[in-house]
């Protein structure tokens, strides 16, 4: 027999208190009467009755009290009984602790139910199995290695908490099967449907998916957000939000914008079922500081209702645009207040580069040979190692856009038409942005601290400059070159890197978490690398001589994932494994304790 909540066994300490109470206090329970001689007559009569029974009957309420305490303790500690399994196996429990597991009310979220179900299975089916516990968040973490010690395993399961990160369950499952001791079964506790796995089919069969329920039925999601400067003279910041009503109900709620924790703007929002709506919020003259946007909706998953943006004084970017004339690109770049543009013809750009100190060089339709020695953008450049001028394609059919990359995230390029393009050779360190049926047309990447974006087609040979996405794309690219993404704005689970300016002699800094908890983080060569970013919110690095803030946001794509269970999937039995359902006897004990109460009441009142 095991207990799901063994901590309640401490209630048994009430019994000695009851005994002491009964022994010492009992004698004081005296009822005054006017005369005793009538009672004494009765007393004599009772003496002639069965004395032993009378004594027992007198003590029955006390015995029932003890019995009631014992039964109540058993009820609360929830014992489970099970049969001994016939065979010992190695089983891995994978508990999804991504943001979607935060669904539900506090205390009964998917993650809580997952842990409870895992403990039940541990005490039931897998009592005699060697069980390993894996936490699947942005990283896969082995919480407890194979063990037969259920108490330790229960503690390990209970120690798992949800995060605001996304989860790759495939990665966790792959980790489980990569272990030296390959498990005979993997049990995944999640709220998602099993996706396509890269596992061999025989291994896939040993994976049991245990659903923790549907995605929240009533959920409003900030499914995407971005911040950029507008095209006005003042270059004010604008926040772009995409909000999705992922429920069957019409939703009314308030959208609140806070600047440095003070309410900045409130908007009433109405959304029809399953509507996705884009909102733009003007930030006025705000140039730096913390902006928090919150949906004030009482929905099932609150973690996806809040995003944080930390604005810093904008870094200036000096760009040399080598072109024989590209007014679209020039105008769009000029819209960025923080960008200084210098123009030159392709004939004399070498001299210009040598004399100027440019952060980025854009080669637009340059025929000469190009040696990339700084951050660069190559647009239909002829003489370079990345553009294959032998493969010119007319009206290429576009197959895929890498919207997950920061430069294309949130853009719509479905209407993009290209008249003519070269194929680009994507190096190992590069990431394809636009893919055609003949090969990549655009890629970007970073090598030796140099960033490079290569486009195989001339912008003027496409309708891209006419698309709304074009200025946004250039804006993203500019920001990518500025390197803001890795400064103060990361998604949950990512490692935050910060280089402490100047001389820093200490070997550690203190990181203050969003919930106020303090973490001491080591510093090497002035570099802080902080990994415990599982929760969304504002983090502060305190190094005595400096203070630095950064924000962590949840990964929006995970919430909108519809790939979830429509109903519970019951684990299927596998030959060779004896599975028993834990017999939850607490209900029986609850009935017995109620019975004890009734009998006690009878003895006191009715006897």
């Amino acid at each position, binding site marked *: 027999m095991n207990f799901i909540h063994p901590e309640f066994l401490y209630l048994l300490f009430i019994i000695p208190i009851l005994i002491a109470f009964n022994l010492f206090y009992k004698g004081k329970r005296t*009822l*005054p009467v*006017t*005369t005793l001689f009538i009672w*004494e*007559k009765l007393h004599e009569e009772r003496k002639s009755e069965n004395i032993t029974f009378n004594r027992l009957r007198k003590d029955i309420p006390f015995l029932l009290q003890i019995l009631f305490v014992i039964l109540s303790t058993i009820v609360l500690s929830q014992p489970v009984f099970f049969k001994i399994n016939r065979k010992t196996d190695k089983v891995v429990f994978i508990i999804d602790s991504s943001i979607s597991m935060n669904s539900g009310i506090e205390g009964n979220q998917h993650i809580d139910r997952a842990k409870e179900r895992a403990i039940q299975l541990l005490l039931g089916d897998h009592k005699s199995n060697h069980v390993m516990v894996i936490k699947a968040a942005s990283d896969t973490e082995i919480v407890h290695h194979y063990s037969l010690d259920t108490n330790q395993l229960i503690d390990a399961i209970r120690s798992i908490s949800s995060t605001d990160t996304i989860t790759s369950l495939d990665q966790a499952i792959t980790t489980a099967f990569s272990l030296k001791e390959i498990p005979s079964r993997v049990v995944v506790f999640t709220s998602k449907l099993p996706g396509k796995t890269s596992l061999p089919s025989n291994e896939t069969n040993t994976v049991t998916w245990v659903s923790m329920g549907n995605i929240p039925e009533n959920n409003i999601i900030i499914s995407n957000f971005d911040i950029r400067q507008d095209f006005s003279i003042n270059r004010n910041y604008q926040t772009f939000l995409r909000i999705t009503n992922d429920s069957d109900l019409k939703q009314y709620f308030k959208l609140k914008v806070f600047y440095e924790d003070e309410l900045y703007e409130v908007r009433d929002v109405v959304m029809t079922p399953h509507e996705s709506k884009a909102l733009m919020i003007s930030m006025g003259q705000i140039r730096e500081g913390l902006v928090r946007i919150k949906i004030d909706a009482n929905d099932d998953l609150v973690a996806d209702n809040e995003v944080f943006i930390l604005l810093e004084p904008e870094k200036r970017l000096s760009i040399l645009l080598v072109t024989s004339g590209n007014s679209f690109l020039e105008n769009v770049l000029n819209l960025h207040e923080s960008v200084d543009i210098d123009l030159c013809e392709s004939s004399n750009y070498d001299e210009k580069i040598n004399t100027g100190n440019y952060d980025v060089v854009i080669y637009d339709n340059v025929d000469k040979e190009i040696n990339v020695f700084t951050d660069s953008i190559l647009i239909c450049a002829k003489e370079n190692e990345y553009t294959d001028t032998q493969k010119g394609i007319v009206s290429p059919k576009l197959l895929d856009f890498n919207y997950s990359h920061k430069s294309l995230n949130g853009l719509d390029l479905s209407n993009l038409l290209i008249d003519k393009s070269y194929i680009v050779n994507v190096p190992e360190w590069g990431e394809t942005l636009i893919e055609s049926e003949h090969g990549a047309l655009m890629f970007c990447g970073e090598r030796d601290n140099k960033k490079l974006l290569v486009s195989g087609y001339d912008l003027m040979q496409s309708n891209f400059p006419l698309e709304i996405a074009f200025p946004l794309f250039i804006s993203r690219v500019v920001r990518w070159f500025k390197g803001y993404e890795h400064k103060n704005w990361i998604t949950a689970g990512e490692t935050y890197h910060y280089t402490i300016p100047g001389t820093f002699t200490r070997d550690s800094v203190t990181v203050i978490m969003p919930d106020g908890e303090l973490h001491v983080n080591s510093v090497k060569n002035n570099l802080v690398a902080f990994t415990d970013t599982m929760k969304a919110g504002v983090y502060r690095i305190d190094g005595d001589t400096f203070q630095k803030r950064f924000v962590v946001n949840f990964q929006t794509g995970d919430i909108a994932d519809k790939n979830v269970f429509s109903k519970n999937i019951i684990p299927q039995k596998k030959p060779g494994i004896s599975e028993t359902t834990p017999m939850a006897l607490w209900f029986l004990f609850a009935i017995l304790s109620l019975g004890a109460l009734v009998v006690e009441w009878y003895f006191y009142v009715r*006897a």
Partner: protein
Amino acid sequence: MSDLITDAALFERLKQFSFVPGRHVSSSHGNLKKLSRGTGGEFSDYRNYGIGDEIKYIDWNIYARSNKLFSKVFHEEGNMDVHLLLDVSKSMDFGKKNKLRYAKNIMMILAYIGITNNHNVQFSAFADKSFMTMPLGHNIDIFGHFLESLEDLHPQGITQLNQSILSYLHEQKPSGLLFIVSDFLDEEGYEHGLTHLAHSPLHVCCLQLLCEEENDPKISYTDNLQDIESNRLINFNLTRSTCQKYMKVFKQHIEQFKTFCLLQNILYLNLSTTIPVDQFIINLVQQGICKRK
């Protein structure tokens, strides 16, 4: 808060009542009881002739018709001695509706009726073997002082009915009408004292006062019962069955007392603190002790 109900309307109502003298004189043959006092007594009833009855009260006309001797019985009028005996032992200080408080009001009512009807009233409170006496006479002026004394009475000692009554008889040599208010729950019994009372030249009326807790004890989580007079403890657990048995035995005890009073020609009146005090006068009228003027 005052123990007594000093309501002007109540006293106004009490003025309408008077005691009926000699109504319950013993029928025991040979008892030399004074059937009527003074002159001008009002004929009340007949009873069988007993040895010691005066010959002048024999109704010879009835004897001529039935060949049996009957004595005439007369009401006593005016100047009758009225003795009020109150048990102030600790057992009277009991009950949610306190018995002693209730008994004090009964004493007040009886005293007032006596005084306003020109009777010679004497109040006594007893506990243990001793008693405190306060002659009131028929002077209404002393009634206020009597009420103050009544208020100041506190429960004390244990009930010793027999010895208290005998002492009273010995010291006061009373005659007339005697009311005794007590719970009559004395371990040593009441028979000896009451028998002497019954054989004295007194018309005795026993008012047995009980409270709800005595008549119908509630089940409670208890282990001991304690006598509030002697502080003696007995080990006892109150259950429904024991309570039922107690009530049965208690009723038997009451019935025995009632029968004893009947046999001794003592008027018995059972009072409960749950009944309003002024209701008590109605009981007196119903029992023929009082009448409307």
